[in-house]
């Protein structure tokens, strides 16, 4: 025998679901679920903490707002959007997950994600590791100098920061300059080899964005605006993502 059906009692208005529908284009199609389970069957997060995307959507539709906005499962869904891809109705479950994340009191969201976003807000680097523009410049110049001195053929290798008018504005995951700086070198060599006119920015060079994962709209907006704004200031044409 299965478990007894959930008694929903009196009619429960789904405040959460309605709110999410209002902010999504076409309401995120959240009303269109056929309950087929294609989302859940191909979701790596299915079963974790007894939850899956289909169940999550059904719970939201049934107005189980408290459960939906408090389950830690929203941090186990990576918002990879495969469920939308396989859904016959293109239902935006990840947007529902994002909104549920944003309903958590900010200080109760996972510490690592919160800390990484706060680090990115510390200075203009927008680096989840909190590296300052000065630290970044120091590492880049230090690594560059060593390559120029020790690797024949790369005496004139470039790794410019804030080069006005460069064609490409390049970002870089900040774990590379901070924890494994040698990993930047192959990228520089490739750009050198093809003769690309490129630059890092002293502002917004950090390629990662944990504020988005934190579901903190204001901070996500700030980091993107800082980075894109600096690419504009430098007169770049292409914003080139390394990941």
């Amino acid at each position: 025998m299965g478990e007894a059906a959930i008694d929903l009692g009196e009619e429960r208005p789904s405040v959460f679901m309605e709110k999410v529908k209002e902010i999504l284009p076409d309401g995120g199609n959240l009303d269109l679920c056929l309950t087929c389970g294609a989302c859940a069957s191909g979701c790596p997060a299915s079963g974790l903490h007894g939850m899956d995307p289909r169940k999550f959507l059904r719970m939201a539709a049934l107005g189980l707002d408290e459960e939906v906005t408090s389950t830690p499962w929203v941090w186990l869904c990576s918002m990879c959007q495969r469920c939308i891809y396989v859904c016959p109705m293109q239902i935006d479950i990840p947007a529902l997950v994002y909104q549920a994340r944003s309903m958590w009191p900010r200080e109760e969201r996972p510490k690592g994600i919160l800390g990484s976003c706060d680090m990115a807000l510390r200075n203009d680097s927008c680096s989840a590791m909190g590296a300052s523009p000065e630290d970044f410049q120091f590492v880049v110049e230090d690594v560059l100098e060593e390559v120029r001195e020790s690797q024949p053929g790369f005496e004139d290798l470039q790794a410019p920061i804030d080069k006005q008018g460069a064609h490409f504005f390049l970002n870089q995951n900040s774990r590379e300059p901070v924890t494994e700086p040698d990993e930047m070198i192959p990228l520089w060599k490739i750009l050198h080899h093809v003769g690309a006119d490129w630059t890092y920015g002293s502002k917004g060079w950090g390629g990662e964005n944990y504020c988005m994962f934190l579901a903190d709209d204001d901070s996500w907006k700030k980091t993107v605006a800082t980075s894109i704004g600096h690419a504009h200031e430098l007169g770049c044409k292409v914003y080139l993502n390394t990941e």
Partner: protein
Amino acid sequence: MTYAVRAGLQKFDIATDLEIASIYQYYARWIREGKLKVSSDWNKDLKIKFTAQDPCQIVRKSYGDAVADDLRYVVKAVVGEENFVDMYPNKSNNYCCGGGGGFLQSGYNDERREYGRLKLDQILATGADYCIAACHNCHAQIHDLAEHYEAPYHTVHLWTLICLSMGILGENEREYLGPDLAEVGL
């Protein structure tokens, strides 16, 4: 990150005339234009097998199968067509590795590794010696999965292999290569 920028510009209505691109697209373009002179000759006799992760943020969530095809074009040019083994499912239908969405920093490590078993099995099914993970989060997660589950594959960045194939990969730039490639092109 490609998606955070593209989605952020749209969501927050930030105007820009910048082209927002993934470096995969440019790697492919530079090889097609003859500017990036990669070669797979180094692997003709070695026959080391590679598979590649399609990062959700770049493929499914941003540019779709077209950029996944660019990625394959680059990888095949670098390791040899016969030495590339695709995962299944792939491209826009690929499984997330479990490194995305902040998972790596969320503190839910047991759950993250459980989530990643699907990816681990996908990689193991290819029999590849290396998994190319050109997104930093994917790289960290896929590398951690191999360590945790004691899987035999190595995890490498794409830029490492591009430079290896051109004979310009330095001694200190080989952290993620196995003993089979440690000396190649030095």
